[in-house]
Protein backbone atom coordinates (compact mmCIF):
# COMPACT_ATOMS: atom_id res chain seq x y z
CA UNK A 1 0.00 0.00 0.00
CA UNK A 2 2.73 2.43 0.97
CA UNK A 3 4.63 1.23 -2.09
CA UNK A 4 1.85 2.69 -4.20
CA UNK A 5 1.81 6.04 -2.41
CA UNK A 6 5.57 6.36 -2.45
CA UNK A 7 7.16 5.59 -5.78
CA UNK A 8 10.22 3.46 -5.10
CA UNK A 9 13.47 5.00 -6.13
CA UNK A 10 15.61 3.01 -8.53
CA UNK A 11 19.20 2.53 -7.49
CA UNK A 12 21.36 4.95 -9.48
CA UNK A 13 24.70 6.61 -8.75
CA UNK A 14 22.63 9.65 -7.89
CA UNK A 15 21.14 7.83 -4.89
CA UNK A 16 24.57 8.00 -3.32
CA UNK A 17 25.90 11.23 -4.82
CA UNK A 18 22.92 13.37 -3.79
CA UNK A 19 24.07 13.29 -0.18
CA UNK A 20 27.52 14.51 -1.15
CA UNK A 21 26.56 17.55 -3.18
CA UNK A 22 23.02 18.26 -4.28
CA UNK A 23 21.36 17.55 -0.94
CA UNK A 24 24.40 17.82 1.31
CA UNK A 25 22.96 17.71 4.83
CA UNK A 26 25.15 20.54 6.10
CA UNK A 27 25.91 22.83 3.18
CA UNK A 28 22.55 22.60 1.39
CA UNK A 29 19.94 21.45 3.90
CA UNK A 30 21.62 23.11 6.92
CA UNK A 31 20.68 20.23 9.20
CA UNK A 32 22.49 18.99 12.29
CA UNK A 33 24.45 22.20 12.70
CA UNK A 34 24.96 21.74 16.44
CA UNK A 35 27.79 19.17 16.16
CA UNK A 36 29.02 20.89 12.98
CA UNK A 37 29.76 24.04 14.95
CA UNK A 38 30.68 22.46 18.26
CA UNK A 39 33.12 19.63 17.63
CA UNK A 40 34.97 20.72 14.51
CA UNK A 41 37.80 22.52 16.29
CA UNK A 42 40.20 19.79 15.14
CA UNK A 43 40.24 17.47 12.14
CA UNK A 44 40.32 14.36 14.30
CA UNK A 45 37.25 15.36 16.31
CA UNK A 46 35.43 16.19 13.09
CA UNK A 47 36.35 12.84 11.54
CA UNK A 48 35.33 10.87 14.63
CA UNK A 49 32.04 12.74 14.91
CA UNK A 50 31.36 12.25 11.20
CA UNK A 51 32.02 8.51 11.34
CA UNK A 52 29.96 8.06 14.51
CA UNK A 53 27.04 9.93 12.97
CA UNK A 54 27.36 7.98 9.73
CA UNK A 55 27.27 4.70 11.66
CA UNK A 56 24.13 5.70 13.53
CA UNK A 57 22.57 7.11 10.37
CA UNK A 58 23.16 3.98 8.27
CA UNK A 59 22.17 1.48 10.95
CA UNK A 60 19.03 3.27 12.04
CA UNK A 61 17.97 3.95 8.45
CA UNK A 62 18.34 0.25 7.65
CA UNK A 63 16.29 -0.77 10.68
CA UNK A 64 13.62 1.82 9.95
CA UNK A 65 13.47 0.62 6.35
CA UNK A 66 13.17 -3.00 7.46
CA UNK A 67 10.37 -2.19 9.89
CA UNK A 68 8.59 0.31 7.66
CA UNK A 69 5.52 -1.89 7.21
CA UNK A 70 5.17 -2.60 10.92
CA UNK A 71 5.65 0.78 12.55
CA UNK A 72 2.22 2.41 13.02
CA UNK A 73 2.08 5.88 11.56
CA UNK A 74 0.90 7.44 14.82
CA UNK A 75 3.94 6.43 16.86
CA UNK A 76 6.56 6.52 14.16
CA UNK A 77 8.64 9.41 15.53
CA UNK A 78 8.90 7.77 18.96
CA UNK A 79 9.83 4.49 17.30
CA UNK A 80 12.52 6.15 15.19
CA UNK A 81 13.97 7.84 18.25
CA UNK A 82 14.14 4.52 20.12
CA UNK A 83 15.92 2.93 17.16
CA UNK A 84 18.35 5.87 16.82
CA UNK A 85 18.98 5.97 20.58
CA UNK A 86 19.91 2.29 20.52
CA UNK A 87 22.66 2.88 18.00
CA UNK A 88 23.82 6.05 19.71
CA UNK A 89 24.29 4.06 22.91
CA UNK A 90 26.37 1.53 20.99
CA UNK A 91 28.53 4.31 19.52
CA UNK A 92 28.83 5.98 22.91
CA UNK A 93 30.22 2.82 24.52
CA UNK A 94 32.38 2.02 21.50
CA UNK A 95 34.12 5.41 21.56
CA UNK A 96 34.65 5.11 25.32
CA UNK A 97 36.27 1.75 24.75
CA UNK A 98 38.46 2.93 21.84
CA UNK A 99 39.71 6.27 23.14
CA UNK A 100 38.73 7.93 26.39
CA UNK A 101 40.56 11.07 25.26
CA UNK A 102 38.40 11.37 22.16
CA UNK A 103 35.34 10.65 24.28
CA UNK A 104 36.21 13.56 26.53
CA UNK A 105 36.85 15.85 23.54
CA UNK A 106 33.49 15.09 21.92
CA UNK A 107 31.68 15.35 25.25
CA UNK A 108 27.91 15.41 25.27
CA UNK A 109 27.77 15.66 21.50
CA UNK A 110 28.01 11.87 21.14
CA UNK A 111 24.80 11.38 23.09
CA UNK A 112 23.29 14.31 21.23
CA UNK A 113 23.61 12.41 17.93
CA UNK A 114 20.20 11.08 18.92
CA UNK A 115 18.75 14.54 18.37
CA UNK A 116 20.55 15.10 15.06
CA UNK A 117 17.96 16.14 12.51
CA UNK A 118 19.92 14.60 9.65
CA UNK A 119 19.20 11.13 11.05
CA UNK A 120 15.57 11.68 11.97
CA UNK A 121 15.08 13.48 8.67
CA UNK A 122 16.43 10.52 6.73
CA UNK A 123 14.24 8.09 8.70
CA UNK A 124 11.11 10.15 8.13
CA UNK A 125 11.71 11.30 4.56
CA UNK A 126 13.49 8.35 3.03
CA UNK A 127 14.03 5.15 5.03
CA UNK A 128 10.40 4.79 6.06
CA UNK A 129 9.31 4.83 2.44
CA UNK A 130 12.07 3.20 0.46
CA UNK A 131 13.46 -0.27 -0.01
CA UNK A 132 16.40 -1.64 1.95
CA UNK A 133 19.16 -1.44 -0.66
CA UNK A 134 18.41 2.12 -1.83
CA UNK A 135 18.14 3.18 1.81
CA UNK A 136 21.57 1.72 2.49
CA UNK A 137 23.16 3.55 -0.43
CA UNK A 138 21.34 6.81 0.25
CA UNK A 139 22.15 6.91 3.94
CA UNK A 140 25.78 6.05 3.19
CA UNK A 141 25.88 9.03 0.83
CA UNK A 142 24.28 11.30 3.39
CA UNK A 143 26.70 10.10 6.06
CA UNK A 144 29.63 10.68 3.73
CA UNK A 145 28.33 14.16 2.90
CA UNK A 146 27.96 14.96 6.60
CA UNK A 147 31.46 13.65 7.35
CA UNK A 148 32.94 15.63 4.45
CA UNK A 149 31.28 18.80 5.68
CA UNK A 150 32.61 18.27 9.20
CA UNK A 151 36.06 17.65 7.75
CA UNK A 152 35.81 20.79 5.62
CA UNK A 153 35.24 22.82 8.77
CA UNK A 154 37.60 20.85 10.96
CA UNK A 155 40.64 21.08 8.67
CA UNK A 156 40.27 24.82 8.06
CA UNK A 157 39.78 25.52 11.76
CA UNK A 158 42.69 23.32 12.81
CA UNK A 159 45.08 24.70 10.16
CA UNK A 160 44.30 28.32 10.96
CA UNK A 161 43.65 27.97 14.67
CA UNK A 162 46.50 25.68 15.54
CA UNK A 163 48.82 25.47 12.52
CA UNK A 164 48.44 21.69 12.44
CA UNK A 165 46.49 19.02 10.59
CA UNK A 166 45.60 15.82 12.47
CA UNK A 167 48.10 17.04 15.05
CA UNK A 168 50.99 17.26 12.58
CA UNK A 169 52.60 20.68 12.48
CA UNK A 170 52.40 22.30 9.04
CA UNK A 171 54.33 25.53 9.42
CA UNK A 172 57.43 26.84 11.10
CA UNK A 173 57.25 27.22 14.89
CA UNK A 174 56.87 30.98 14.39
CA UNK A 175 53.40 30.51 12.91
CA UNK A 176 50.83 32.72 14.59
CA UNK A 177 47.70 30.67 15.36
CA UNK A 178 44.36 32.43 14.80
CA UNK A 179 42.99 31.54 18.20
CA UNK A 180 39.48 32.69 17.32
CA UNK A 181 39.21 29.82 14.83
CA UNK A 182 39.25 27.11 17.51
CA UNK A 183 36.87 29.11 19.68
CA UNK A 184 33.09 28.88 19.09
CA UNK A 185 32.94 32.02 16.87
CA UNK A 186 35.44 30.38 14.52
CA UNK A 187 32.90 27.64 13.80
CA UNK A 188 30.37 30.22 12.67
CA UNK A 189 32.95 32.11 10.59
CA UNK A 190 34.18 29.00 8.76
CA UNK A 191 30.67 27.58 8.21
CA UNK A 192 29.57 30.96 6.88
CA UNK A 193 32.55 31.12 4.53
CA UNK A 194 31.87 27.61 3.14
CA UNK A 195 28.18 28.41 2.66
CA UNK A 196 29.15 31.59 0.87
CA UNK A 197 31.45 29.64 -1.45
CA UNK A 198 28.92 26.89 -2.22
CA UNK A 199 26.05 29.30 -2.78
CA UNK A 200 28.24 31.37 -5.07
CA UNK A 201 29.22 28.23 -7.02
CA UNK A 202 25.60 27.16 -7.36
CA UNK A 203 24.44 30.60 -8.44
CA UNK A 204 27.18 31.00 -11.00
CA UNK A 205 26.28 27.57 -12.38
CA UNK A 206 22.66 28.65 -12.74
CA UNK A 207 23.78 31.89 -14.34
CA UNK A 208 25.97 30.06 -16.83
CA UNK A 209 23.14 27.68 -17.69
CA UNK A 210 20.79 30.61 -18.17
CA UNK A 211 23.26 32.30 -20.45
CA UNK A 212 23.52 29.11 -22.51
CA UNK A 213 19.77 28.65 -22.98
CA UNK A 214 18.98 32.33 -23.09
CA UNK A 215 16.59 32.04 -20.15
CA UNK A 216 16.46 34.87 -17.61
CA UNK A 217 19.17 34.53 -15.00
CA UNK A 218 17.60 34.05 -11.62
CA UNK A 219 19.35 31.82 -9.19
CA UNK A 220 16.65 31.85 -6.57
Amino acid at each position, binding site marked *: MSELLNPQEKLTPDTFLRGLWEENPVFVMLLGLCPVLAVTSTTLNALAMGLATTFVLVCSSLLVSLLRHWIPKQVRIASYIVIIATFVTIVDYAIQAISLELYAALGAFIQLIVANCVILGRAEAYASKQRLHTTLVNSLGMGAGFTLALLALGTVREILGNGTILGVSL*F*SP*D*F*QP*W*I*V*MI*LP*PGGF*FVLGAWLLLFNWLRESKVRRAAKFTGAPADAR
Partner: protein
Amino acid sequence: MSRGIEIRTSPHLKRVVTVDKIMRTVVLALLPIAAFAVWQFGLSALLLLLTTTGVAILTEAFFARVSGRGNTVSDWSVVITGLLLGLTLPPGFPLWMAAVAAFVGVALGKALFGGLGYNVMNPALVGRAFVQAAFPVAITTWTPAFAPGRFTEIIPSTLTPPFMQPIPVDDWVAGLNLDGWSGATPLAIQKFQHIETPLMDTFSGMIAGSAGETSAILILICGLWLAWQRMLDWRIPVSVMAGAVLVALPFWLLDPNIYPSPWFVLCSGGLMLGAWFMASDMVASPVTASGVILYGLFIGALTVVIRLFGGLVEGIMYAILLANALGPLISSWTQPRVYGSK
Protein backbone atom coordinates in the same frame (compact mmCIF):
# COMPACT_ATOMS: atom_id res chain seq x y z
CA MET B 1 12.32 67.93 -15.85
CA SER B 2 9.53 70.08 -17.28
CA ARG B 3 8.88 73.37 -15.58
CA GLY B 4 5.23 72.78 -14.81
CA ILE B 5 3.61 72.26 -11.45
CA GLU B 6 5.63 69.81 -9.47
CA ILE B 7 3.88 67.60 -6.95
CA ARG B 8 6.01 66.12 -4.23
CA THR B 9 5.69 64.71 -0.76
CA SER B 10 7.49 66.32 2.17
CA PRO B 11 10.17 67.23 3.15
CA HIS B 12 10.25 70.35 1.00
CA LEU B 13 13.16 72.06 2.70
CA LYS B 14 16.38 70.11 2.90
CA ARG B 15 19.83 70.78 4.17
CA VAL B 16 22.31 70.19 1.42
CA VAL B 17 24.21 67.63 3.42
CA THR B 18 25.16 64.53 1.50
CA VAL B 19 26.61 61.31 2.82
CA ASP B 20 30.04 62.00 1.43
CA LYS B 21 30.07 65.51 2.90
CA ILE B 22 29.34 64.13 6.38
CA MET B 23 31.96 61.47 5.95
CA ARG B 24 34.58 63.93 4.71
CA THR B 25 33.95 66.13 7.74
CA VAL B 26 34.40 63.17 10.07
CA VAL B 27 37.66 62.26 8.31
CA LEU B 28 38.78 65.86 8.76
CA ALA B 29 37.99 65.65 12.47
CA LEU B 30 39.97 62.44 12.74
CA LEU B 31 43.07 63.85 11.07
CA PRO B 32 44.40 65.77 14.12
CA ILE B 33 44.00 62.63 16.23
CA ALA B 34 45.83 60.60 13.58
CA ALA B 35 48.55 63.25 13.41
CA PHE B 36 48.97 63.16 17.19
CA ALA B 37 49.22 59.37 17.03
CA VAL B 38 52.02 59.64 14.45
CA TRP B 39 53.81 62.32 16.47
CA GLN B 40 53.54 60.20 19.60
CA PHE B 41 54.35 56.75 18.25
CA GLY B 42 56.29 57.63 15.09
CA LEU B 43 56.67 55.73 11.84
CA SER B 44 55.00 52.56 13.11
CA ALA B 45 51.74 54.39 13.81
CA LEU B 46 51.88 56.00 10.37
CA LEU B 47 52.37 52.63 8.68
CA LEU B 48 49.58 51.15 10.80
CA LEU B 49 47.10 53.87 9.82
CA LEU B 50 48.07 53.65 6.15
CA THR B 51 47.69 49.86 6.18
CA THR B 52 44.26 49.77 7.82
CA THR B 53 42.92 52.59 5.64
CA GLY B 54 44.42 51.15 2.46
CA VAL B 55 43.17 47.61 3.06
CA ALA B 56 39.74 48.92 4.07
CA ILE B 57 39.48 50.88 0.81
CA LEU B 58 40.64 47.91 -1.28
CA THR B 59 38.17 45.60 0.45
CA GLU B 60 35.32 48.03 -0.10
CA ALA B 61 36.27 48.45 -3.76
CA PHE B 62 36.45 44.68 -4.21
CA PHE B 63 33.03 44.04 -2.70
CA ALA B 64 31.48 46.97 -4.53
CA ARG B 65 32.73 45.43 -7.77
CA VAL B 66 31.63 41.88 -6.93
CA SER B 67 28.16 42.93 -5.78
CA GLY B 68 27.69 45.45 -8.57
CA ARG B 69 26.80 48.26 -6.16
CA GLY B 70 28.87 50.76 -8.07
CA ASN B 71 31.64 52.89 -6.67
CA THR B 72 31.04 52.99 -2.91
CA VAL B 73 34.57 54.05 -2.01
CA SER B 74 33.88 57.63 -2.98
CA ASP B 75 31.41 58.17 -0.13
CA TRP B 76 34.45 58.24 2.19
CA SER B 77 32.76 56.10 4.85
CA VAL B 78 35.31 53.34 4.40
CA VAL B 79 38.14 55.80 5.03
CA ILE B 80 36.63 56.50 8.45
CA THR B 81 36.41 52.78 9.15
CA GLY B 82 40.06 52.29 8.21
CA LEU B 83 41.30 55.30 10.16
CA LEU B 84 39.27 54.47 13.27
CA LEU B 85 40.43 50.87 13.19
CA GLY B 86 44.07 51.97 13.00
CA LEU B 87 43.56 54.39 15.87
CA THR B 88 42.23 51.61 18.13
CA LEU B 89 45.17 49.24 17.59
CA PRO B 90 48.41 49.21 19.57
CA PRO B 91 51.10 51.21 17.71
CA GLY B 92 53.41 48.20 17.32
CA PHE B 93 50.65 45.93 16.03
CA PRO B 94 51.96 43.71 13.18
CA LEU B 95 50.84 45.16 9.86
CA TRP B 96 49.63 41.83 8.49
CA MET B 97 47.28 41.47 11.46
CA ALA B 98 46.09 45.04 10.92
CA ALA B 99 45.34 44.12 7.31
CA VAL B 100 43.33 41.11 8.50
CA ALA B 101 41.40 43.35 10.89
CA ALA B 102 40.61 45.87 8.15
CA PHE B 103 39.51 43.16 5.73
CA VAL B 104 37.30 41.39 8.28
CA GLY B 105 35.86 44.67 9.50
CA VAL B 106 34.79 45.89 6.07
CA ALA B 107 33.88 42.48 4.63
CA LEU B 108 32.10 40.94 7.60
CA GLY B 109 30.98 44.10 9.37
CA LYS B 110 29.75 46.01 6.36
CA ALA B 111 29.83 44.47 2.87
CA LEU B 112 28.04 41.23 3.76
CA PHE B 113 25.20 43.17 5.36
CA GLY B 114 24.74 45.23 2.21
CA GLY B 115 27.14 48.14 2.56
CA LEU B 116 26.81 51.54 4.15
CA GLY B 117 23.47 52.05 5.84
CA TYR B 118 22.84 48.38 6.47
CA ASN B 119 25.64 47.49 8.85
CA VAL B 120 24.32 46.38 12.23
CA MET B 121 27.56 47.14 14.02
CA ASN B 122 30.43 49.57 13.68
CA PRO B 123 32.68 47.92 11.04
CA ALA B 124 35.93 49.16 12.61
CA LEU B 125 35.03 47.56 15.92
CA VAL B 126 33.98 44.32 14.23
CA GLY B 127 37.48 44.15 12.74
CA ARG B 128 39.08 44.93 16.06
CA ALA B 129 36.95 42.38 17.92
CA PHE B 130 38.02 39.74 15.41
CA VAL B 131 41.74 40.34 15.87
CA GLN B 132 41.25 40.66 19.63
CA ALA B 133 39.84 37.13 19.63
CA ALA B 134 42.31 35.82 17.04
CA PHE B 135 45.55 37.39 18.31
CA PRO B 136 45.00 38.19 22.01
CA VAL B 137 48.71 38.55 22.79
CA ALA B 138 49.64 40.90 19.95
CA ILE B 139 46.75 43.24 20.67
CA THR B 140 47.80 43.71 24.29
CA THR B 141 51.50 44.29 23.56
CA TRP B 142 52.12 47.97 24.24
CA THR B 143 55.11 50.09 23.40
CA PRO B 144 56.15 53.29 25.14
CA ALA B 145 55.02 56.68 23.84
CA PHE B 146 57.58 59.25 22.68
CA ALA B 147 60.31 56.69 22.21
CA PRO B 148 63.49 58.45 21.07
CA GLY B 149 64.17 57.83 17.40
CA ARG B 150 60.55 56.96 16.69
CA PHE B 151 60.64 58.88 13.40
CA THR B 152 63.64 57.03 12.04
CA GLU B 153 63.12 53.47 13.24
CA ILE B 154 60.15 51.17 13.28
CA ILE B 155 58.92 49.13 16.24
CA PRO B 156 60.23 45.62 15.39
CA SER B 157 56.84 43.89 15.71
CA THR B 158 55.33 46.18 13.06
CA LEU B 159 57.13 44.47 10.20
CA THR B 160 56.41 40.89 11.26
CA PRO B 161 56.21 38.63 8.18
CA PRO B 162 52.64 37.58 7.36
CA PHE B 163 51.20 34.65 9.36
CA MET B 164 54.14 34.70 11.75
CA GLN B 165 54.13 35.52 15.43
CA PRO B 166 54.97 39.12 16.24
CA ILE B 167 58.68 39.80 16.65
CA PRO B 168 59.27 40.35 20.40
CA VAL B 169 59.68 44.00 21.34
CA ASP B 170 61.27 43.48 24.76
CA ASP B 171 64.86 43.88 23.54
CA TRP B 172 63.96 46.96 21.55
CA VAL B 173 62.19 48.57 24.51
CA ALA B 174 65.12 47.69 26.82
CA GLY B 175 67.43 49.40 24.34
CA LEU B 176 65.48 52.64 24.75
CA ASN B 177 66.60 52.90 28.40
CA LEU B 178 63.29 54.30 29.58
CA ASP B 179 62.66 54.76 33.28
CA GLY B 180 59.58 53.27 34.77
CA TRP B 181 58.31 51.48 31.68
CA SER B 182 56.33 48.45 32.79
CA GLY B 183 54.83 47.46 29.46
CA ALA B 184 51.34 48.31 30.65
CA THR B 185 48.83 51.03 29.92
CA PRO B 186 47.46 53.30 32.68
CA LEU B 187 44.27 51.23 32.65
CA ALA B 188 46.12 47.99 33.39
CA ILE B 189 48.25 49.65 36.06
CA GLN B 190 45.11 50.95 37.73
CA LYS B 191 43.30 47.63 37.46
CA PHE B 192 46.03 45.37 38.80
CA GLN B 193 48.18 47.63 40.99
CA HIS B 194 45.56 50.25 41.84
CA ILE B 195 47.92 53.10 40.99
CA GLU B 196 46.29 55.93 39.12
CA THR B 197 48.26 57.75 36.44
CA PRO B 198 48.17 61.54 37.05
CA LEU B 199 45.17 63.17 35.43
CA MET B 200 47.30 65.62 33.45
CA ASP B 201 49.04 62.73 31.64
CA THR B 202 45.89 60.83 30.68
CA PHE B 203 44.12 64.06 29.79
CA SER B 204 46.85 65.33 27.49
CA GLY B 205 47.87 61.95 26.13
CA MET B 206 51.42 61.54 27.46
CA ILE B 207 50.76 57.82 28.02
CA ALA B 208 51.01 54.46 26.31
CA GLY B 209 47.97 52.92 24.73
CA SER B 210 46.35 52.30 21.38
CA ALA B 211 47.62 54.60 18.65
CA GLY B 212 44.79 57.13 18.73
CA GLU B 213 43.11 56.78 22.11
CA THR B 214 45.68 58.49 24.33
CA SER B 215 44.86 62.19 24.23
CA ALA B 216 41.50 62.82 25.86
CA ILE B 217 41.64 66.59 25.29
CA LEU B 218 42.36 66.29 21.57
CA ILE B 219 39.55 63.79 21.02
CA LEU B 220 37.24 66.04 23.03
CA ILE B 221 38.09 69.07 20.89
CA CYS B 222 37.70 67.21 17.58
CA GLY B 223 34.47 65.62 18.79
CA LEU B 224 33.04 68.92 19.98
CA TRP B 225 33.87 70.52 16.65
CA LEU B 226 32.07 67.68 14.89
CA ALA B 227 29.05 68.05 17.18
CA TRP B 228 29.06 71.79 16.54
CA GLN B 229 29.06 71.04 12.81
CA ARG B 230 26.02 68.81 13.53
CA MET B 231 27.81 65.82 12.09
CA LEU B 232 27.25 63.74 15.20
CA ASP B 233 24.52 63.52 17.78
CA TRP B 234 25.91 65.17 20.94
CA ARG B 235 23.53 63.14 23.08
CA ILE B 236 25.48 59.95 22.40
CA PRO B 237 28.96 60.93 23.68
CA VAL B 238 27.48 62.92 26.56
CA SER B 239 25.32 60.02 27.72
CA VAL B 240 28.18 57.55 27.29
CA MET B 241 30.32 59.67 29.58
CA ALA B 242 27.41 60.18 31.98
CA GLY B 243 26.79 56.44 32.11
CA ALA B 244 30.45 55.78 32.87
CA VAL B 245 30.55 58.37 35.64
CA LEU B 246 27.27 57.17 37.16
CA VAL B 247 28.65 53.68 37.62
CA ALA B 248 32.20 54.67 38.55
CA LEU B 249 31.31 57.33 41.12
CA PRO B 250 29.68 55.16 43.86
CA PHE B 251 32.54 52.67 43.79
CA TRP B 252 35.13 55.42 43.97
CA LEU B 253 33.35 57.03 46.92
CA LEU B 254 33.23 53.61 48.58
CA ASP B 255 36.94 52.89 48.26
CA PRO B 256 39.12 55.36 46.36
CA ASN B 257 42.19 53.20 46.98
CA ILE B 258 40.97 50.39 44.77
CA TYR B 259 38.44 51.89 42.39
CA PRO B 260 39.39 54.50 39.77
CA SER B 261 38.18 58.05 40.01
CA PRO B 262 35.48 59.15 37.56
CA TRP B 263 37.87 61.51 35.75
CA PHE B 264 40.41 58.72 35.36
CA VAL B 265 37.63 56.53 33.96
CA LEU B 266 36.75 59.22 31.44
CA CYS B 267 40.28 60.06 30.31
CA SER B 268 41.89 56.62 30.22
CA GLY B 269 41.62 53.86 27.67
CA GLY B 270 39.40 54.11 24.65
CA LEU B 271 36.38 55.66 26.31
CA MET B 272 36.79 59.11 24.77
CA LEU B 273 37.50 57.84 21.27
CA GLY B 274 34.70 55.28 21.57
CA ALA B 275 32.18 57.76 22.91
CA TRP B 276 32.82 60.50 20.37
CA PHE B 277 33.69 58.60 17.21
CA MET B 278 32.42 55.03 17.44
CA ALA B 279 29.28 54.96 19.55
CA SER B 280 28.10 57.91 17.46
CA ASP B 281 28.18 55.84 14.25
CA MET B 282 25.07 57.09 12.45
CA VAL B 283 24.07 53.74 11.03
CA ALA B 284 24.60 51.52 14.05
CA SER B 285 23.06 53.75 16.74
CA PRO B 286 19.32 54.01 17.52
CA VAL B 287 17.30 56.59 15.62
CA THR B 288 15.20 58.21 18.34
CA ALA B 289 16.37 61.07 20.58
CA SER B 290 15.48 59.30 23.82
CA GLY B 291 16.80 56.04 22.40
CA VAL B 292 20.31 57.35 21.88
CA ILE B 293 20.45 58.50 25.51
CA LEU B 294 19.49 55.03 26.69
CA TYR B 295 22.03 53.60 24.26
CA GLY B 296 24.79 55.93 25.46
CA LEU B 297 24.11 55.28 29.14
CA PHE B 298 24.20 51.55 28.46
CA ILE B 299 27.57 51.81 26.71
CA GLY B 300 29.13 53.94 29.44
CA ALA B 301 27.81 51.81 32.28
CA LEU B 302 28.78 48.52 30.64
CA THR B 303 32.28 49.81 29.85
CA VAL B 304 32.94 50.60 33.49
CA VAL B 305 31.40 47.33 34.67
CA ILE B 306 33.73 45.40 32.33
CA ARG B 307 36.71 47.47 33.44
CA LEU B 308 36.02 47.02 37.15
CA PHE B 309 34.73 43.48 37.31
CA GLY B 310 35.54 41.79 33.99
CA GLY B 311 38.59 39.84 32.97
CA LEU B 312 39.41 42.41 30.31
CA VAL B 313 41.25 45.63 31.02
CA GLU B 314 39.16 47.72 28.62
CA GLY B 315 35.50 47.21 27.82
CA ILE B 316 34.43 49.99 25.49
CA MET B 317 34.68 47.85 22.35
CA TYR B 318 32.37 45.08 23.53
CA ALA B 319 30.06 47.62 25.16
CA ILE B 320 29.61 49.47 21.86
CA LEU B 321 29.20 46.29 19.82
CA LEU B 322 26.57 44.99 22.25
CA ALA B 323 24.76 48.31 22.26
CA ASN B 324 24.88 48.36 18.43
CA ALA B 325 23.19 44.98 18.44
CA LEU B 326 20.54 46.33 20.82
CA GLY B 327 20.09 49.46 18.67
CA PRO B 328 17.01 48.39 16.68
CA LEU B 329 15.34 47.14 19.88
CA ILE B 330 16.01 50.45 21.66
CA SER B 331 14.65 52.30 18.63
CA SER B 332 11.42 50.35 18.69
CA TRP B 333 11.02 50.83 22.46
CA THR B 334 11.41 54.56 22.23
CA GLN B 335 9.20 55.33 19.24
CA PRO B 336 7.71 58.75 19.82
CA ARG B 337 3.96 59.11 19.88
CA VAL B 338 2.74 60.31 16.54
CA TYR B 339 0.87 63.61 16.96
CA GLY B 340 -2.83 62.96 17.11
CA SER B 341 -2.58 59.26 17.94
CA LYS B 342 -3.13 57.68 21.31
